């Protein structure tokens, strides 16, 4: 097969730049970054695809792309069955449960039954509360979950935080941590079999690159 190996890169947001840099260190320079969805790279065996970080786990799961750089949190949220070949260690964040500063709730255990939880991570949130035996109503919002308590939409939010600044600014307090996440190099399971040699080579170069730092 002479197919090119397709690697998906976040098209915007905080993962984009470090993802491009990590590949660059491994010898894969993106050649036509601006406005292109599909871009040639300096390594003729690889082709870059720009997609939303959110969607990359799904692309990799179905093999629409062979490799992808995306967050561990997003892989779990989308329920994608992919190989997480490498922890790229950037894009560090924590998925937390938070309430308004003046809330009477101090821990996840104190969350009342049937509480409304606003989140951009409905699947992880549902699973998390199921595990604690709490029945909550999960409201899916795409982005700015921190707004929900202010508007009276929900008393609780589940959202990612890296520095805690946004939570603080919105007068929210963390009452529990669901998971820690970093960005990963995800790989389709069948693609790994097909391109094992090339992918192992890439991995070795990426590992070498991050160790030198």
């Amino acid at each position, binding site marked *: 097969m002479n197919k090119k190996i397709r690697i998906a890169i976040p098209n915007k947001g905080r993962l984009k730049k470090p993802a491009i840099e990590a590949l660059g260190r491994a010898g894969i320079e993106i050649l036509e970054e601006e406005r292109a969805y599909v871009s040639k790279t300096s390594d003729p065996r690889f082709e870059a695809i720009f997609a939303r970080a959110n969607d990359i786990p799904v692309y990799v799961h*179905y093999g*629409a792309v062979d490799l992808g750089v995306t967050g561990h949190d997003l892989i779990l949220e989308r329920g*994608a*069955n992919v190989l997480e*070949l490498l922890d790229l260690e950037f894009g560090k964040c924590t998925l937390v449960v938070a309430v308004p500063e003046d809330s009477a709730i101090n821990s996840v255990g104190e969350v009342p039954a049937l509480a409304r939880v606003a989140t951009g991570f409905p*699947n992880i949130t549902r699973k998390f509360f199921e595990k604690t035996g709490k029945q909550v109503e999960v409201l899916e919002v795409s982005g700015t979950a921190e707004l929900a308590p202010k508007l009276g939409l929900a008393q609780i939010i589940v959202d990612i935080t890296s520095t805690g600044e946004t939570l603080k600014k919105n007068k929210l307090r963390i009452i529990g941590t669901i998971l820690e996440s970093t960005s990963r190099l995800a790989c389709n399971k069948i693609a790994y079999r097909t391109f094992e040699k090339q992918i192992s080579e890439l991995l070795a170069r990426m590992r070498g690159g991050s160790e030198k730092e």
Partner: protein
Amino acid sequence: MTAPVARIVTTRMPSAPEPIRLFYVNNVFRYSQSYLKREREFCQAGVELVGCNTPEADGEILALLISSLKQVGLQEVRIDLGHASLLKDLLNAAGLDKQQKVSVQGLLACRDSVGLKKFMEQNSFPSNLREAFLQLSRCRRLGEVSSISLSGSKYDKLNKQLESLLELQETLADYEIDDLVFFDFSLTKKIEYYTGMVFEASVPNLGLPLGGGGRYDNFIEKFGKLRLPATGFALEIGKLLQALTAQGFEIPESSKTKVIVASKFRDTAVEAVKLLREDGVIASLEITKRSLEKTMEYGKLTETDYVVSVGSSLKSPVTVFDVKSKVSRDVMLETFLEEVGG
């Protein structure tokens, strides 16, 4: 479908001569909570070979799997095969607790050799097992497994399992499919259920496995008193179609001719429809009282090839209208049947 087959073997076929070879094509229902996998009903075709645990039985199943995939027209088929008991026993030999086993399986499944090495160092893995783990995770051919063996009588069972992979390799060579079967130590799914080989079939064009299977020697007894070893595979029909499409295969449209019979004489029309159907034509009767023109319009919308107008008797010619070209001609029904019949 293995569970229903195991039940049938136990309850309905207790005295069937062994080995028993069974197949099925059936809709399977699953409850999946996964956000992605919404496949709750899908069609599966599979086989089970019950009552035998020789390498020949495993070889037969793999050979049948490969010939099935080739028969449906797929190219670049490959099978990746691991060994459930080998992995299970190695994990036990290393003296790992449940949580540690899950960690190792996760690292293997993610092909994280760096993480695996680190884990083994931190958890003081015996050095001989460490070497075996790393070697096995590097092996891609069943033949390469021959270089691995553990000394010491407590590893007899493990060594036997390694040997069984070699025997399987030899069987596959006789079927001339050994170049299509790859070893994959990281195949860890359903490790509690499978007891021997466990495998997945795939083609490079599709990102999901087409199906898989393995050996399950301790499963059938759960349904009753019969202790029978067994092995088998199942394929997902939907995935096969996706893979075929990805390889550029076009599913041929039905070549059957579609005809509407219109007539003022119901008895002749019914007779004509019957004769057309007997010859493999998709025929329907014009059951409304609309004009021939309207019937032609209907025919066009329903992708019908011909409208056939018949008179009071089939002994005289019928008028055949070509729906596309609107050209008509008078012809005996038998002659028309010879032209369009299957």
